[in-house]
């Protein structure tokens, strides 16, 4: 792993059900067992250091798993520690932004933590560039595009997040300090594209060169 200086050494937190389309896709089941109610706090998970892959790296897919789910998102990298911050000042705690590809093995239940689906070695593509707040401006205005082998598979409008970047930082920092170098992923779309070994995944923010193009190729893992 050599991602410096793209990421400082902090914990990477992802968030489930932050996009309107993802919420809408699940809304019909939220009252049912085992969930019994819609989530109130941000639904977080951790992408551990073993998952980190640099831009350009090959990512191994388990032999018995034909397809992985592509989770394009924008990483907010924390500069000044954020504890119980208000939305109005939350973005002042962001040192920069990076594209990520939050890969998962497809799973149909969100009841238990997704460790065996989301924390496989290499399952978080990161990079290639760290863009400053000045270069990005309002992160919620961005659109991400996902291409598999050159074909457009998903367009994700970061403006449709139920908790925009500032609100997300505020709501997470209510119960845990986001430390220098910690990372919050802004959220995923619904209907995330699938890919298999041999395919090349590209993620870019349309109209913003400062983040570059995150490229990773999937390869078959060792048996």
């Amino acid at each position, binding site marked *: 792993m050599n991602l410096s200086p793209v990421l400082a050494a902090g914990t990477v937190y992802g968030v489930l059900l932050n996009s309107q389309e993802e919420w809408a896709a699940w809304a019909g089941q939220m009252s049912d067992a*085992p969930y019994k109610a819609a989530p109130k706090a941000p639904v977080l998970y951790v992408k*551990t250091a073993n998952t980190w892959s640099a831009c350009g790296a090959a990512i191994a897919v388990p032999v018995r798993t034909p397809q992985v789910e592509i989770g394009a998102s924008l990483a907010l990298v924390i500069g000044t520690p954020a504890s119980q911050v208000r939305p109005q000042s939350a973005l002042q705690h962001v040192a920069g932004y990076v594209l990520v590809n939050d890969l998962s093995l497809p799973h149909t239940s969100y009841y238990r933590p997704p460790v065996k689906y989301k924390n496989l070695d290499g399952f978080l593509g990161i990079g290639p560039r760290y863009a400053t707040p000045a270069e990005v401006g309002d992160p919620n205005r961005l659109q991400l595009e996902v291409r598999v082998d050159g074909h457009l598979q998903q367009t994700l409008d970061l403006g449709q997040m139920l908790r925009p970047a500032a609100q997300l930082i505020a709501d997470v920092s209510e119960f845990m300090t986001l430390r220098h170098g910690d990372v919050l992923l802004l959220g995923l779309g619904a209907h995330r594209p699938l890919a298999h070994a041999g395919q090349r995944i590209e993620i870019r923010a349309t109209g913003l060169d400062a983040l570059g193009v995150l490229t990773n190729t999937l390869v078959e893992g060792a048996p």
Partner: protein
Amino acid sequence: MKHARVACDGAIHDATENNGRLLLADGRFVGFDAVTWLPPLAPVPWPRTILALGLNYADHAKELAFKAPEEPLVFIKGEGSLIGHRAHTVRPAGVDYMHYECELAVVIGRTAKKVRRDDAYDFIAGYTVANDYAIRDYLENWYRPNLRVKNRDTCTPLGPWLADTADIANPMNLALKTTVNGHITQSGHTRDMIFDVPYLIEYFSSFMTLNPGDLILTGTPDGVVDCQPGDVVVTDIEGIGALVNTITAQP
């Protein structure tokens, strides 16, 4: 040998236990009261992976009205939730149920990938004691237990000692107990784990590489009770140490 990491005289030191005192790496002896205790972990170049087991003792699963899981129920904590021995843990205002969880914590010593259970002990650096507090008021059924319950600042005391594997002949044969203000409230034994330490290392390393300094918190037995500000909670594991923590009200 038992290792600690302490702040003393304006600097952070590695230390070892020596006849009831701390021997700092620079040769000084200091008393246990003369230092601030930090989690007994050496720094690592990447964020530490902290895996924590839920419902890994049959009696505790029953206590919480669950049937025993068929595969490990695991969640991940951030390093920011850790604090050391003799520190304070915040009880949020207005909650009804905050409980400790005394847990054997395994510290990984060597990079572990696709390790077989028969070899698992070779990948362990040592053991410490974790108190994996939960605020049950915040429990939601999405990626449960959710981080608002389990990943709060100050809510994972760890320490005081990292005990070498050489000192712990069999980690699956240790008594655990918790006292609150001196009264025993939790009493269990590591032999009652559903998934034992070698199994857990084989299981996790089958899909994720464990790195030196990573932690596995192996779950807690029956006997969790609500704790209030001012309560002194001591989580104690035979041969490893007694981790002291005091609950404080939200400032």
